[in-house]
């Protein structure tokens, strides 16, 4: 596109972000401050993920963008169109043929493979933020590995509800060191973070933080021996492809309260339907 550099950001900015990414990969789960720039999309709409994608994108990359697991949600469409316009890269909806996948709120159902990069959009990178609002304090807590409050919070959930009442953005411990917010993915997706073959990058534009989980890194979801971590399950299967193992979205079909459940990952669902048919 005329007047703008490849992938929108200037090369110096991209270089600054890549250097921060190298640090993030070297210290898995650690939030690296970076000089986040304004993007031509609002903060909170994926500017962190977009800056990371812009910094790592090359002309031979194949980009997939999903929001809520779907390629056709409005913001996914908008971000994909943005990179087509400013980088002219090839795009795809197929998880397996993408080299870079930018995502909001989901990890694709299909297993990722070595060499793929998954870029997460992160609203609040600090897992301790809702326990301790001050950034000065939380940085100190990370430095001292002082994570007791997080377990207290989870314990209070159990005492009050009988369950841990965190269903998304469920905190994890990365490589036995840093407690990390996996972005608001459902806890259903947390097990996919563990020993994943792909490189996973997390970008928070407004908060100007990025972090990473390198391939084959141990990632555990916080829990207790007597209340082990568990993921969501549905009584139904996907009404379109019949999957019993994917994350399902509930769709209200009429005003009588009838509903059906369908895969949130549209590529996974369509691939299965293609295979079944």
């Amino acid at each position: 596109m005329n007047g703008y550099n490849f992938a929108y950001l200037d090369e110096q900015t991209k270089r600054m972000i890549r250097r921060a990414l190298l640090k993030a990969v070297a210290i898995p789960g650690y939030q690296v401050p970076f000089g986040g720039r304004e993007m031509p999309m609002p903060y909170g709409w994926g500017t962190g993920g977009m800056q990371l994608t812009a910094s790592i994108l090359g002309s031979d990359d194949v980009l997939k963008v999903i929001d809520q697991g779907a390629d056709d949600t409005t913001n996914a469409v908008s971000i994909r169109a943005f990179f087509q316009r400013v980088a002219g890269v090839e795009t795809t909806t197929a998880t397996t043929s993408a080299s870079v996948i930018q995502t909001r709120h989901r990890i694709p159902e299909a297993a990722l493979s070595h060499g793929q990069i998954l870029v997460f959009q992160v609203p609040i990178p600090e897992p301790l933020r809702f326990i301790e609002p001050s950034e000065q304090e939380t940085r100190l807590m990370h430095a001292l590995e002082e994570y007791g409050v997080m377990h207290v919070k989870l314990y209070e959930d159990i005492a009050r509800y009988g369950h841990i009442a965190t269903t998304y953005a469920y905190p994890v411990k990365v490589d036995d060191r840093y407690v990390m917010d996996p972005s608001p993915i459902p806890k259903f997706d947390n097990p996919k973070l563990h020993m994943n073959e792909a490189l996973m990058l997390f970008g928070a534009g407004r908060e100007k933080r990025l972090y990473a989980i390198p391939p084959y890194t141990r990632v555990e979801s916080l829990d207790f021996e007597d209340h082990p971590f568990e993921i969501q399950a549905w009584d139904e299967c996907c009404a379109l492809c019949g999957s019993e193992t994917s994350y399902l979205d509930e769709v209200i079909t009429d005003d009588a309260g009838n509903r059906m459940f369908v895969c949130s990952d549209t590529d996974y669902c369509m691939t299965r339907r293609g295979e079944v048919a």
Partner: protein
Amino acid sequence: MYVAVKGGEQAIANAHQLLGDRRRGDRELAELSVEQIQEQLRLAVDRVMSEASLFDPELAALALKQASGDTIEAVFLLRAYRTTLPRLAVSEPVDTSAMRIERRISATYKDIPGGQILGPTYDYTHRLLDFMQLAEGEIPTPARAEQALESCPQILELLNAEGLIEREADDGSEPYDITRDPPDYPVDRAARLQMLARGDEGYLLSLAYSTQRGYGRNHPFAGEIRIGQVEVEIFVEEFGERICIGEIPVSECQMINQFGGSREVAPQFTRGYGLSFGHNERKTMAMALVDRALRAEELGEPVNSPAQQAEFVLAHADSVEASGFVSHLKLPHYVDFQSELELLRRLRRAHAASQKAASDEEVI
């Protein structure tokens, strides 16, 4: 039968086309030009430049036009453009003492060297709708003084000479650049003033007001407010000296606040500072009050009010960040909502079962 929703791309394109149509309004009426906005909505243009931290009246006017007059949207447009600009040079600090004054007042002395100069102000206008402007009446040309203004020394410098107010000196350190580096709390005063300078006016105004009503009170006096043109200079290596690259209008407010002092240092007035592009008097006054409130810790005052808490004040001052994050709630959250639904249903099932067990026990 349910079909997965498609066609986001076409819907977005159509929505944008409709937006363009609404922006233009009735085609029977002449289209508003950017020049008209720049000349006739001057204060809106100044606010947009100030919160976008880019001095360019024409582009700020364009942003206002494109945003249909929505200031926050216009600030965002201009800020997003600013971030793509190369940095060719860094200016020398502007010297507001050498300002070509258009307005200059002090609330601390009746008469001051150089005089009180009202300039173009809404102060003392009676807020009565002027129906003449509906009829597009002619505006008379303002009266002009015969001779040039006398020099206007900074009021706070007069106090400074007597040692009554704390001195501020340039320690020569490189100021933090909030546009290039992420804020690192606790931030120093240079970073804080930058963050306040681009902070949302309404937000700063409310916080400033809260300090006056007792939440972090610091007894302010408007020491001096001055508005006018200042020269922007850069140092050119090849010439070995500074050259002036142009003039910009700025507003500056210096607040005088209650005493600080210690066993070693005699009691002195303290300062709060506000500066912004263009004619932005309300903003600079609010900024100066909040700046002073945020100095509480440094001056050994108790920190117990919202306006005194640096992380709270500064992390939420930017309208581009705030409006982005609030508006992102409009994006789909199906997946997380589904997670919550699943948990809520499970909790309600468990609750119903325990209620039933309890009532069964009562029957027995």
